[in-house]
């Protein structure tokens, strides 16, 4: 891994995004002796997956599956990784893609930083830890999280009190308060867009009142609560640290609804809700757990069995629409549910002390604005080819993972391999054509 790269470095492939899709593509390309540059805008690679607890359908711990791929990519001689770097724009001329990167200042010289964390220990300023979904706190200068790659401290300028203590304790003089953003253009023959997804806001449906209660939480926060190395090391609800006794999952809380601009299915929420429910019932054997759903979409290999196991474990599945969530006394929540399960009592009210909203998946980045890559009406990268599902509208540019629509890890990894295959075929054919051309003209 090398963090100092200049414009004269010409990779065979530039991969946008260091999530599981980007890393898998990079590894499959590098194993064919192609040179790959992975560009990641966060301060660690790993994407969404590194923040998950355990992953369906096998319930492996997410770190255990992600870290080896992160580490393999970081140590691969054919892979270079740039973190804290965002792809801003791209243009293509004569088959060469020029990708403009913005390297954000980290205020730490990565060549000097040895990851000793003395700065982090010395720093006095804390802010809510974004990796822990704001549940714990992190110092203004810190290595992003335990298994982050690279293990380099990054200073958050927004929260830094500029006291200078980090610079004083740093044994290698790595702190550089005067770092400036840097733009850099990389020229490459091919690109894979693996920029992944975001979740729409928990507040996207005002009737769910997420703004009024910290006990109405995003599913990513539940992942952190369930992670064995999570912020509290156990499941506690955010408002008062109480151990929840009745947890509700509200499905389709940001998907399958034209009125909020997300008419499509987010594809993973049924399965992660079931997974979280199972993990919760392990962590809190006494808690009641209810999943309010429209359709259970357990379509993948082994997924239906996973769903049936959850039912057998006693998790409550209630088919119906949650019309409203109201914060009530003691930090609890009242759900107004229209259910078709109970003829006597179709309009029900249920009290829970923690509510997880299955938000919708939306694109993390819109390449259509600044690159030749077109997006479809759902906002995700368009894949117009009938035979090549990872080809975008632009020749030589491919797409993998959630950047091309909501997707679980299994499907993401398959697509990442497919994109890598298409790139290597594309490069092989392109270079063979150049050789033929040279033979003809020379």
């Amino acid at each position, binding site marked *: 891994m090398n963090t100092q790269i200049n414009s004269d470095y010409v990779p065979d492939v530039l991969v946008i995004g260091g999530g599981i899709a980007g890393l898998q593509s990079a590894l*499959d390309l590098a194993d*064919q*002796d192609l040179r790959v540059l992975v560009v990641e805008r966060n301060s660690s690679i790993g994407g969404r997956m590194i923040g998950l607890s355990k*992953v369906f359908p*096998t319930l*492996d*711990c997410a*770190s*255990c*599956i992600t*870290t*080896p791929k*992160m*580490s*393999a990519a970081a*140590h691969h001689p054919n892979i270079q990784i740039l973190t804290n770097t965002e792809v801003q724009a791209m243009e293509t001329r004569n088959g060469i893609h020029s990708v403009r990167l913005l390297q954000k200042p980290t205020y730490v010289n990565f060549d000097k930083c040895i*990851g000793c964390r003395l700065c982090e220990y010395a720093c006095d300023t804390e802010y809510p830890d974004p990796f822990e979904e704001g549940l714990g706190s992190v110092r203004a200068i810190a290595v992003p999280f*335990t*298994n982050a790659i*690279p*293990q380099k401290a990054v200073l958050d300028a927004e929260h830094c009190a500029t006291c200078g203590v980090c610079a004083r304790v740093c044994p290698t003089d790595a702190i550089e308060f005067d770092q400036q953003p840097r733009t850099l253009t990389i020229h490459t023959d091919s690109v894979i867009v693996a920029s992944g997804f975001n979740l729409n806001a928990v507040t996207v449906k005002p009737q769910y009142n997420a703004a009024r209660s910290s006990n109405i939480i995003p599913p990513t926060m539940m992942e952190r609560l369930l*992670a*064995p*190395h999570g912020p509290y*090391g156990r499941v506690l609800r955010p408002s008062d640290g109480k151990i929840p006794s009745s947890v509700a999952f509200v499905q389709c809380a940001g998907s399958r609804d034209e009125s909020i601009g997300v*008419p*499509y*299915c987010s*594809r993973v929420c049924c399965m992660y809700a079931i997974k979280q429910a199972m993990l919760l019932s392990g962590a809190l054997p006494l808690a009641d757990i209810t999943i309010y759903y429209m*359709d259970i979409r357990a*379509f*993948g*290999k*082994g*997924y239906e*069995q996973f769903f*049936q196991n959850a039912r057998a474990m006693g998790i409550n599945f209630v088919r119906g629409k949650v019309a409203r969530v109201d914060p009530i006394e003691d930090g609890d929540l009242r759900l107004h549910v229209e259910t*078709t*399960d*109970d*003829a006597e009592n179709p309009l029900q009210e249920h009290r829970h002390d923690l509510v997880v909203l299955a938000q919708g998946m939306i694109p993390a980045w819109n390449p259509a604005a600044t690159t030749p890559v077109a997006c479809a009406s759902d906002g*995700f990268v368009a894949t117009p080819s*009938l*035979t090549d*599902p990872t080809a975008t509208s632009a020749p030589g540019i491919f797409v993998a993972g959630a950047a*091309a*629509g909501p997707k679980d890890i299994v499907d993401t*990894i*398959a*697509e990442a*391999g*497919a*994109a*890598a*295959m*298409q790139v290597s*075929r594309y490069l*092989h*054919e392109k270079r*063979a054509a150049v050789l033929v051309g040279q033979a003809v003209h020379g």
Partner: protein
Amino acid sequence: MSEHNQQVQPQKNKPMQNERAADAPLRIGVYICRCGGNISDVVDVDRVAETVKLLPDVVTAKVHTFACSDPGQQTITNDILEQNLDRVVVASCTPFLHEQTFRGAVSRGGLNPYLYEHVNIREQASWAHKHDPEGATIKAIRMIAAAVGKLHHVEPLEQIKLPNHRRALVVGGGIAGMKAASELAGRGIKVLLVESSQRLGGQLNDRGRVYPTERDAKELVEELARRVRTHSNIEILMQSNVTAVSGFIGNFKVAIRTEAAGIPVTETTVGAIIMATGFRPYVPQDGEFLYRTEPGVVTMPEFLQLLRSTPDAARKLTWNGRVIRNIAFLHCVGSRQLDGVHEPPPNGRLNTYCSRTCCTTILQQALEVRHRFPSVGVFDFYRDIRTYGRGEENYYSAASRAGVTFFRYNGEEPPRVELTPRARAKEGVLSVTLNDTLTWGTELSVPVDMVVLGTGMMPGEIADLIEQMKLATGEDGFLQEVHPKLRPVEVSVNGILLAGTAQGPMNIQETLAAAGAAAVKAAAMFAREDVELNPYVAEVDLSRCCGEALCVTQCDYEGALQMVSMEVEGATVERAQVNAGLCVGCGACVAVCPNRAIDVNGWRLDQFEAMVDGIAAAIPGQECTPELVNIH
């Protein structure tokens, strides 16, 4: 071309680091992983570290939150360099996940990667003894002691290198097989594509317009068929079957029989095999939903055929001479079956899985009926609508708008298809009866002229290939990958890859992606001159072998062990010889050899003995009580 039974022996080269004086004590480093909490919530890892530090020649024992993370690995690498370690133990999760990871870290420290022992204290200690922290902690200590014992008896090993035939066999010429073949060919790799039928394209032949593109499947099939037919790197054998497979990664010998008369059996060598044999549509049992009892009950493929053969200009949909006025579509026929609810088929295995493609196919067809024949009533009976894929939810909303009427049943109470009582028969001879959960469980009976069974996917009939290649199948009967996330297209036999619906239900896009993923693994494998295998294979000590051949009789892997003639002190004798490519290191031969003349590298008998001694030995502060030994 190298012969398939050629001899390749693991090379025992000098270790990467300078050899220390033979009698100098070892320097062993032990690393204990918390696995976030997966281990340390049960096992007292600090106590483990303190205790194992007292074991012979252990010079350091450290605890890490995630040993597999980069800083965790870095610690190991640095310690090797700085503390001159010459043996390493990591006690963490199953070796299946991370043995390779830590061998890599050990190599980066300049140590031979086989001077490393992996101890699984997560699955085998913390998870197995969740409610007994004390016992789990002692067990972890003892397991590490065993590994330390073994490390006193290991030598450096080298990966076995075998020649690599840069050519792939693709079995099955559906879209998965054609996609994998054309990708590899485009990458400069030779491919042999074998299709058992007369046509390329598999189940998508004659499918008509497919969701979500609404393009004719023919376009897709023809485009892929054109690519495979015109590419000079691809050789196609139609109406052909693979009849024999032997050998190993880089060097599989296959025999292929072609149906047409006069063509001899093709025997050839390939480096990798891609299984793209696809699926079989589910065919209901006789009488299941009155199938084959009532002509108005048809499967989805039969219905697709009916719509396709009905001219575009037709104003009416007719079947068996009858005009269809109402159609019922039934979801989950032959999928998501439940024990005690569904009748098991003759093989006794229920299809408990979801077939992934039926919901959207049904909605697409329901819409098509409403558009082409607006007077036909369409009723949809579902459990959950699973229009999960990109562009699929639109079919659901469009179907609702187009006047398709939905009914929902619980899996435990599937709808019944019956003959309509005479009084209402003019509304439709068949009726579908259910407790409709959309109307709070009201029992409803809907008379219709036709019932379309939304039949799903079944595993292909490839028992012979499964047997030949020693492939694993899952509970669902489809081919089973090693791990859905770590090695999703690989099987436990190296060099064999899975593409498309041979592995489980998938739609077109997923099939093409899976085929690409399989192809890329083959491409990476072919990027190397040689294939490299683990050195854990049997080795014969010729000074002890007396040619009794007990080992050969015991060996389950054809060709892995055989008797060869050789000269010993002027006489010709028979001695056992191992083929490293075929040996799996199971050790069956070791157990039967009366002379201890055969052993498995990396798992030798003296190493096992050292492990047992390590488990049982007294450790300071750790009495070796009988119940302690019982834990194992």
